[in-house]
């Protein structure tokens, strides 16, 4: 069964059709990418899947459950997490605190327990701390733990954001332009990280402008243009697909 | 009785309309919500009192001088407090700064005039006119008349004069305006001065018929918020209409239901409007994010 299933999703607002009858599936543990020229509707697609925008028509299914109408935080609790294009890290917190916030969903300390000083609450917080440390070690950012997030470079901030999103063993990560603005070195690091994630069985859905990156790591690529799917296939197919070339390079 | 209440409501409402107008002009120009606007009202009244009784000027020169001084004060506030905070200061901080100077002016007023309340001897001692069985005092006429004049003036200014359109452009996009060569800080200073002056005018108008005390700004602030909320936050015409409606409704509620209601009428209006239709009567669906 597909991990994520988009069926006939159409999004219209104020007379504009941002997405039109978009359908595709994502398999567990694979890497999917969505590409397309500017304005193709990639961000809208992300926002619809993760519940930030409502769709006019269509359905989104995740692990056999329908996501239509659910609030973003509810969706996030179901095992799907996302990152943001414009930096979703919490600037004033340290890296450790950012990652810990990613664990909020599974940190079992109750408010009453905290207020009264119950050992159970303390133990829950300690458990979260250990998990956060493990995660940071896995992603190679342990030395950054106590640095304020705003002091980091873009590449490092992206890593922190991905680590944070990974915190609760999400089965699907949606990454919104993770490579934008990164140096060559940082891109290499990012690709290594993405491969590591796939090795752990995490499915990825990327929105990306960088065709090279997408071609290098994707198992399947969906191409959008003007809100419609114009191609859906493996990288080799997409590279030579007529409609795709036309969309990117214009009519020749 | 109904018409009498409506009439005094219009006079009262004119004051609210003026203060709300000043606040809205400032809000439109700088996106700052001025929690200290009531103090412009208070200072206007106190200034005119001082100029009349301590300096000994006749009313009209005192009033004009007070207005000019308040205009300069407004500009000074922009220059000294708000310009240093910069364009990108979070709205919370800007609002907090207005709270700070509100506190400051109250303290200054309290320092000079202590804990007492000051009556101003009546300035206009013309006898009230009777029109169709209704009594209209000269104060009411002057208040309503001045408000009408000022509202028209501003309407004309913003719509039809070059300076007014300049101000509008600046409030819509400060960066765009400065690219075109408009001196944005100066325009902002002018808006602050204008807002302060209008608030002061309201204070001057009521000074002859009301008791002056350092905290009198607080009450007018809340009523002004009610007027702006009712009319639609950020809408100039809405602020005026909202103010007038507030005045009239207050008097009607007080007359027909209970005088105790007058005090909290503004509160109820704010709460009801914000919970039911936050955009008020004329407002657009603006997201006033902080």
């Amino acid at each position, binding site marked *: 069964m597909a991990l994520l299933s988009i069926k006939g999703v159409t999004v219209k607002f104020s007379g504009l059709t941002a997405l039109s009858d978009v359908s595709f599936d994502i398999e567990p543990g694979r890497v999917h990418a969505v590409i397309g020229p500017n304005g193709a509707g990639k961000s809208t697609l992300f926002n619809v899947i993760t519940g930030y925008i409502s769709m006019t028509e269509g359905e989104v299914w995740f692990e056999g459950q329908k996501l239509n109408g659910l609030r973003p935080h509810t969706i996030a609790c179901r095992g799907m997490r996302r990152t943001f294009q414009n930096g979703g890290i919490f600037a004033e917190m340290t890296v450790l605190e950012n990652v810990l916030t990613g664990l909020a969903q599974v940190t079992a300390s109750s408010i009453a327990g905290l207020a009264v000083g119950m050992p159970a609450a*303390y133990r829950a917080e300690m458990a979260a*701390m250990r998990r956060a440390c493990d995660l940071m070690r896995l992603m190679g950012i342990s030395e950054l733990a106590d640095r304020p997030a705003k002091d980091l470079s873009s590449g490092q901030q992206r890593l922190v954001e991905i680590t944070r999103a990974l915190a609760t063993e999400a089965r699907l990560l949606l990454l919104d332009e993770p490579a934008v603005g990164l140096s060559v070195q940082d891109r290499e690091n990012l690709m290594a990280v993405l491969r590591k994630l796939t090795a752990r069985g995490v499915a990825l859905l990327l929105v990306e402008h960088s065709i090279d990156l997408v071609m290098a790591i994707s198992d399947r690529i969906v191409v959008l243009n003007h809100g419609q799917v114009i191609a859906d296939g493996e990288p080799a197919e997409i590279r030579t697909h007529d409609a795709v070339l036309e969309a990117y390079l214009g009519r020749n | 009785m109904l018409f009498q209440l409506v009439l005094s409501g219009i006079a009262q409402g004119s004051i609210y309309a003026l203060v709300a107008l000043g606040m809205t002009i400032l809000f439109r120009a700088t996106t700052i919500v001025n929690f200290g606007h009531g103090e412009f009202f208070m200072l206007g009244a106190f200034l005119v009192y001082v100029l009349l009784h301590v300096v000994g000027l006749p009313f009209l020169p005192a009033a004009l001088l007070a207005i000019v001084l308040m205009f300069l004060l407004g500009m000074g506030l922009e220059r000294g407090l708000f310009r240093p905070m910069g364009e990108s200061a979070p709205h919370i*901080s800007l609002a907090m700064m207005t709270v700070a100077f509100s*506190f400051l002016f109250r303290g200054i007023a309290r320092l000079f005039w202590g804990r007492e309340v000051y009556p101003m001897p009546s300035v206009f001692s013309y006898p009230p006119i009777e029109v169709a069985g209704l009594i209209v005092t000269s104060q009411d006429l002057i208040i309503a008349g001045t408000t009408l004049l000022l509202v028209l003036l501003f309407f004309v200014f913003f719509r039809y004069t070059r300076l007014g359109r300049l101000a509008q452009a600046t409030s819509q996009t400060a960066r765009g305006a400065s690219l075109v060569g408009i001196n944005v800080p100066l325009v902002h200073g002018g808006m602050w001065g204008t807002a302060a002056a209008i608030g002061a005018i309201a204070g001057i108008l009521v000074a002859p018929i009301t008791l002056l005390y350092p*905290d009198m700004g607080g009450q007018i602030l809340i009523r002004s918020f009610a007027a702006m909320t009712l009319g639609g936050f950020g809408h100039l015409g809405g602020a005026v209409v909202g103010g007038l409606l507030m005045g009239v409704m207050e008097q009607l509620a007080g007359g027909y239901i209970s005088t105790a209601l007058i005090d909290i009428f503004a509160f109820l209006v704010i709460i009801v409007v914000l919970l039911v239709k936050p955009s008020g009567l004329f407002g657009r669906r603006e997201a*006033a994010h*902080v």
Partner: protein
Amino acid sequence: MSELTEVTRQQARPGVRLQRCAVAALLALALLLVPLVTNDYTQYVVNSILVYALAAVGFNVVLGYLGQLAFANAAFFGIGAYTVALLMHYAALPFPLALGGSAVTGALVGLVVGLPALRLKGYYLAIVTLVFGELMRWAYVHGGDITKGSGGLPVPEAAMFGVVADTDKAKYYVILAVVAAVIWSTNRILRSRVGRAFVAIRENELACASLGISPGRYKVIAFVWSGLVVAVAGGLFAILLGRISPESFNLHQLLLHFAIVMIGGIGSLVGSIMGAVLLTAAPEILRNFPGLEEIIFSLLLIAVLLFLPRGLAGLAARLVPALKERLYRE
């Protein structure tokens, strides 16, 4: 060391832990011995400082950590004071129960304020909460025989464990115990997933939702906790004064709390305590000059807004880096 994690402190090296325990013990001893060096008047001032520190801490949860401009403190403070006064006066409840009652009413009022906070943004919330406080004050004034209106409602003396706290020194221990306990509780909540959620909402609400944190739920929690804390402070205020009237819960009171939080350092608990010390002791000195207190506080507030965004706590952190408690607001 980061501020939002209790746990890292527990994991500090044994030498550091011992040092911290020693400091804490000394502090506790000093606090317990305060009444030895004060007279009735200065004891009253110390008691006031504690009460205002608690009110400021409660305010800081919403203003500094959650980052919402909500002016509900006068409402919370007032409901706490009147709850204690009414329960002790009419229901003859012992003080601990009455104070518990004020915690409950404070939490309820926090809920009432917190729910609209989900829909109202920015200025609207500030205005509504301001207005709500004034509405409640009107209710106290017009509460007829129950609240005794503007004349003021006398508050019976607090009795705990059979001992009546009728002197300022006796009241000190009651107030100290409650304030210390509630600030400790608040600190634990802020240094946990709950506190991190508040700050996260302040920093980036959209990102929060993507992490499974419901912004609405945590905003309400913040308001409820804030209401509870400030109402308890109000209850203590009632005991402190011995008589409460509606005038104590007007805009002036709100501005005072606000000034304490801002000047002490927004987003810093220690700052709120420092702010309370500075701004509560000062009025006593300036008592003879009406208005001077407001002028000085507002100038300090302006100075903080322009030059010292992190207030006294930030200043202290700069001067003594070892004290660095990280703050979360500009």
